[in-house]
């Protein structure tokens, strides 16, 4: 991994972040910090999202109608904004998972042919 720059890795990861967010939020409503922590824990640290990436990404998904959000008050502290998948988001997710599987299959077939 030594010669691979952070930017390059970030670029490789970018395409799958939205899909991961939709999957995670299909389980129930979650707030930003929770999403960051859960993604990091689930992937053994591979998806360690920066806040500056996560929050705008959530907003984009919301603007597209794939997520909805609501403020939840709590006993102490500032309320949290919880995100949740919409029906439209669910439909997009299940379709995207199929695309993803095809993509992985296709990419792996090509990668196997690589000469190292």
């Amino acid at each position, binding site marked *: 991994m030594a010669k691979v720059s952070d930017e390059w890795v970030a670029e490789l990861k970018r395409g799958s972040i939205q899909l991961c967010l939709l999957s995670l939020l299909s389980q129930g409503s979650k707030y930003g910090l929770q999403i960051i922590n859960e993604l990091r824990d689930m992937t053994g640290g591979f998806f360690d999202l920066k806040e*500056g990436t996560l*929050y705008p990404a959530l907003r*984009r998904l919301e*603007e597209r109608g794939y997520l909805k959000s609501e403020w939840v008050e709590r006993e102490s502290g*500032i*309320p949290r*904004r919880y995100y949740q998948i919409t029906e439209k988001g669910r439909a997009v997710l299940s379709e995207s998972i199929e695309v993803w599987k095809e993509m992985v299959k296709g990419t792996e077939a090509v990668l196997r042919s690589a000469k190292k």
Partner: protein
Amino acid sequence: MNDVVESYLAEIERKLFWMNRKTREDILREIRSHLSDRIAAGESPGDVILSFGPADAIAKEYLRIYGFGAGFVFVFGILAIVLSVFTVPGTVDIASDYSGMDWVSLVFLLMTILLVLFTAYKGGRKAGVIAGLLGCATRFVVLGLLVSTGSVVIRDGVLGALGFAFVSIMLPVIGYLSSVRSYAK
């Protein structure tokens, strides 16, 4: 909260000046909630802010998503209308009582194009297209009025009219194409 945090939030708020007020407040509240959660968990405010990222970059990301608020779309739309009145050849002569002022119309046309570019760049695709459409419509209305009252005649016949129409239609097209906003909402 902490002074460092407050000034960080204030900087983002300033950079989101162009945005709809409600959305801006909502974004700031969300960031504030996140920062305070991490600080409450024992992290230092400086580290937490550093991890969130530079205010400038954060604000740019959000502006890309939401673009101008309705107030700024309105202001820039009005500006587009006012400027594009004088892009119609003949209007400057009438307004200034001098003749041969059509070169000023070209200057106004340039300003209108720059305005549409700026609106689209800063305010998003929707704002850019609205400014361009208003400019385009104004040009046709003003020309129509001038021709029907006999104040101007279209020079160069069909070619002149086609050129005028082409330039007019290009305004919303410029607004559409020059938006960096990834969501054509």
